[in-house]
């Protein structure tokens, strides 16, 4: 019974993380282009409530805001970009 509960809780946590909105999806929904700002500029956006409100970020949950921030800073104009032919 105990192991079944643990397994069930683990699956719930895993499914939550699997199906949580990705930062990329959130950026697309809010029409935010990660490469339009540098890393520090995106970090400043998340420090200013009025800036966040103007972009619709304030309506997101804390988890989604973190996911969005992670995506925007990791794909910012001065972030480490993947390289491959045609990319």
């Amino acid at each position, binding site marked *: 019974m105990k192991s079944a509960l643990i397994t069930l809780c683990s699956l719930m946590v*895993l499914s939550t*993380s*699997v199906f*949580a909105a*990705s930062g*990329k999806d959130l950026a697309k929904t809010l029409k935010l282009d990660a490469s339009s700002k540098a*890393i520090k500029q995106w970090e400043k956006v998340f420090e200013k409530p009025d800036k966040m409100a103007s972009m619709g970020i304030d309506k997101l949950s804390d988890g989604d805001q973190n996911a969005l921030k992670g995506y925007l800073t990791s794909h910012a104009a001065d972030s*480490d*970009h*993947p*390289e*491959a*032919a*045609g*990319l």
Partner: protein
Amino acid sequence: MKKTIILSALAALVVSSHAADTSVQAQIDELKSKIEALQKAQNEQMSKQAVQVSKTETTRVDELEDRIDKVETASMVNKINWGVDFRTRVDSFKRTAADGTQSSNNDVWSNRLRLNMSSVITDDMKFTGRVVMYKNWADSYAYPYSGMDPMQGRRPSDSSIFVDRAYVDWTVLKGQVPLALTIGRQPSSDGPSHQFKDNTVRKSTYSALSFDGGADGVVATVGLSKITSIPDMALRLGYGKGYQQNTGASYVGASGGIADTKVVGAFLDAGLGIAGSLAQISAVKATNVVSNTPPTTLGVSTNANIGDVSLYTAMVEFTNLANSNLDLFAHYAMSVSSPNGVTSAYGPYNMGLLTNTIGDTAEKKGHAYWVGGRYTFENTMLNNPRVGLEYNHGSQNWFSFTQGSNDVTNKLATRGNATEAYYIQPINRYAYLRAGAQIINYDYSGSGMQIGAPTVMAAGMPTELNKLTNYYLLFNVSY
């Protein structure tokens, strides 16, 4: 009389009243005039002020536009964006030869500097480049194989700067099936899945099990994700040269009897519907591979075309699988070497394509696989460190194009087994330390070389490397 007085009084009152009305009206009219004058003056004043404010605002906007113009001009004139990737590394090597002889070097230091360049030329054209200096400390000795194109800037040499990559991505067609051409010195080194160990993102088109090193060519990329709905799906067709005959002072002349090594390949990329996933299958053929053997003591070239090599590769990798902080990868490749019977003299030996026998045209098949994973610990105090483990195995006739590997041991070319474990300690967003250990056991000779028959390690092979261990520590900053 009384009536007269009353009438007179009344008349006087009327006259007086009329006079008073007239006076009040006059005063009212006067007040009206004054009010109108005041209003007019106020309106004029407000107009003047509005004009003044408008002029001030216009001036400020003009000033701001001038300043923005200067910044924009500077941005447009500075056509290249630069980045720095710098590494210092210390290695401790211990070598065991096939006859049991051991040697070691516990203190080998090197520096590597990479200057990354990028430039957005137009909406559909961009340039990417990289120049490299890679040298051992206090060593001005040029790496003996610096003349081998895939290895330039990829192995410790002197302080020379080499162009590691320089290419233009040109989006020829947009729309449902976009087409891009990548022209120049390709992003063909440090490819998947080296990015986990290097603490970065994908840095090459090709699976690193089969290709690692500089390469010049043209690659056409056809985007298929819009018409297939498969994320990141793309078909790439490439053409390049592994060797081009140098005709010296003449651009047209005798090739010395050596044909160019031409390389053609097809690569299919796709995501697997899981965030951070990548799968790739590829088929490549290199024709007229050269032996690259050194000249004789009299300076006579011994270089010759020795046959063709085909490589078939499949890989899959997952970055942060299901947000679990776990990265996983697996690569498999098969090599088919077809010697043409020609050999080059190398000392007392005849060197053909994986053979020492003149006239040998038998096909040599080999295979290899490379698996590994990396885990990120969520520990803010330690900046989320990472641990990784990798293993690769190569068969007797395994041969690939990883001679330009940035790993001096070229472990993925091993005809045997190689294991590597490492720990990454981030310092900040841009810098990290990595400590690691490689243990490589060679079952057959000549790992990574296209010449000579791979033979089982035996005691009678004193110069053959049987086992190599390497412990290292490196500091890397990429900004």
